[in-house]
């Protein structure tokens, strides 16, 4: 009799286990998500995650999906709740809108495509589910988005000052003097997982991973890319300086039409001999 009770109990426990493993059980860490008036449903997001995300990001959200070994750069590990493209200060969680924008935009030059074809509700549901992978979402609130001041005119003075900052702050050591991502330190860079990481190649790229606008680029300086060697310069760069850097970086993009590049090319025509090479002082030391 005792044996049959044990077996019966085992079966009940097994059935309970099956029930737990079956979709429909409320997620313990559901903190929700809200974007543009839409409220995310983590339970629905779980199904969507299985359909679209699990191959790379993994069932546990740890970036160890079955395709992950073949994906470069590696998929995001959601269990760390560490996100690169944010509107919030470094070290803080991104807003739901930030995650929504990344999902919608995709990450150019990686295997993360744009998910714009999904309905807005599906994208918000996915965010709600992604947030269940890390307890940080329960203990911390998203950071407050930084304020982006209006962009000043793209003048040659702004470009030249930005160029000077690019040189002084040694941005070129990673991004290279021509912005090709081939600076002397580039080869040594790794992300927080110890994986090699390449600085952005402004020369070849037309879209940034953080977006396409000057404001998106501005945000990068002020928020940093958490989990990468790209720090936040919020404490050392004034807003005007950051805009000047943005304007200079636009001159490094031959495949993108911009006012900054136009004024720069005009300047180069008349000041060819006066332009000091970036990184020249360090090279001479």
């Amino acid at each position, binding site marked *: 009799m005792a044996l049959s009770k044990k077996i019966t109990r085992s079966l009940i426990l097994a059935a309970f286990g099956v029930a737990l493993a079956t979709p429909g059980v409320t997620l313990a860490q559901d903190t929700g998500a809200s974007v543009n008036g839409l409220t995310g449903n983590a339970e629905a997001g779980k*199904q969507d995650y*299985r*359909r679209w995300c699990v*191959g790379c990001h993994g069932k546990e959200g740890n970036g160890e999906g079955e395709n992950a070994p073949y994906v470069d750069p590696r998929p995001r590990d959601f269990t760390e709740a560490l996100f690169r493209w944010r509107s919030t200060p470094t070290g803080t969680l991104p807003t739901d809108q930030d995650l929504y924008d990344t999902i919608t935009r995709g990450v150019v030059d*990686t295997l993360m495509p744009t998910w714009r074809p999904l309905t807005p509700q599906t994208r918000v549901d996915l965010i709600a589910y992604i947030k269940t992978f890390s307890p940080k979402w329960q203990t911390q609130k998203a950071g407050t988005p930084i304020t982006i001041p209006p962009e000043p005119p793209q003048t040659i003075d702004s470009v030249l000052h930005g160029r000077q900052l690019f040189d002084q702050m040694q941005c070129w050591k990673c991004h290279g003097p021509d912005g090709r991502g081939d600076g002397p330190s580039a080869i040594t860079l790794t992300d927080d997982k110890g994986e090699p990481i390449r600085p952005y190649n402004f020369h070849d790229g037309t879209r940034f991973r953080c977006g396409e606008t000057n404001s998106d680029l501005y945000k990068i300086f002020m928020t940093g890319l958490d989990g990468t060697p790209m720090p936040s310069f919020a404490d050392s760069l004034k807003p005007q300086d950051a805009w000047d850097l943005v304007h200079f970086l636009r001159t490094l993009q031959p495949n993108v039409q911009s006012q900054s590049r136009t004024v720069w090319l005009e300047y180069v025509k008349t000041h060819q001999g006066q332009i000091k090479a970036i990184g020249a002082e360090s090279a001479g030391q």
Partner: protein
Amino acid sequence: MNSHSPSKITNRVVAAIPALMLLAAVLVPAPKPANAIPAFARKYGLPCSACHIGWPELNNFGQVFRDNGYQMMNERDSPITRDPSYFPITVRITPQWHRESANNQIVDNTAGNSENGSHPGTLTTTGFDLSGLDLWFAGTLYKNISFSVLPSSDSFANFHFENAYVRFDNLLHTSWLNFKVGKYELDLPVSEKRLLTLSGDGGFYYIYHFTPLNDANPFGGIGDNQLGIELSGHNTNSYTRYAFSVVSSNDGGVGLLYGLPAPPGESGQNPAGRTYDYYGHFEQGFNTFGNGFMKVGAYAYYGFAPTFFETSAGTPIYGRGNKSFVRAGAEWKWYFNKFLVKGVYLHGSDNAFLANALDPRIDTLSSTQHAPKWNGGFLEGQYIISPQWIIIARWETVHMAQQADTSITPGNTGNLNAFTIANRWYPFMFSRAGLALQQEYSFVRSNGVTNQGGAFGSLCTDAGRSFNCTIGSSSLMFGFDFDF
């Protein structure tokens, strides 16, 4: 020892465990990752379910991918960005067991001797079988230039080119301007090539291929892939799409001949005419409640087929006296939560000379000869339990509005109603291959003539009252649909 002794209970419970486990396995599919068509899954590392409701049917993400010329538009599309060992090929075939049955068929009174008369009877056949084979190559040649080549065979391994085209996308840097040239599936409201039902009676859409009894139009239907050029465009999420095709008037035939090559041992094809057919499709989508979206659209095919041939020493060289035919209709698709409902309406009509096989140079229409007209449509529902499990049900109907020759064909001949239900389960999938277990049943009731899909094709014979009876035809199928 009574019947409730511990040892007996134990034995029963232990004996029941495998059955319970099997039941659990059937009722609760393990939530394993779902993946999809390997040619692209291998390239992008995405699960099949990213692009497919259940392969091969596309979801909206897959539709956008296809509309972009098989590109994610993420600067990783050109083959130069891929591992050199990547090779874009997929093979697909479906080993299966199936049963085909139809009543009111001609059965010889003496088996093996058709001269001793016949009687109406039910014919049934059953056994293990193979589907045809698809050997599909598709991918990008360069940024914004893609291709597809699909040598496809019937189950006897007679191959033909199901499709073969090159496609150019984002001309003038806009997604509204793309074109492809070659042989391809028309941009139909619902793709038949990506149908989730596979059985003899349920493995196609009747309205895409319907031709009335005694209608001489050789056109195989808009479901057949056509040879020509297509201009198309779409917005970023493919909610707004258009496609316009100009195709040769030969039903996709190669060698300037009409239709598919005849299998070995069968008579050859007629030469084609020298005209072109036109097809247009527009659809518009919008978000709805229930986290869904709806698409509505309209389409039309305006084609020509010859009524006589120019000959040389008695041999037909090319078709002449082309007369027109039309297939046009509307669509409605609604995706919401775990449901997908879609409906397509079609109106068809053929020129009276074409339908009645009359030479317009010398023949005139009699009072009983008309341009045949018919209306049809289908309503299909899918319940997507998970990315790995889909239940499909469909009702399809065709009703004749006007026969080609009312003195030969009664008004309701050819009318049909088809019902199909299928369960498609992807028990396991790896990122580079797919397997689907399919159980399907399809039943068709048609007037006067056996439906155009089943294993039998005789006219209805009900104690000699030809055309005036109803045929019930059915297919039952258990298949293992796999691709790699």
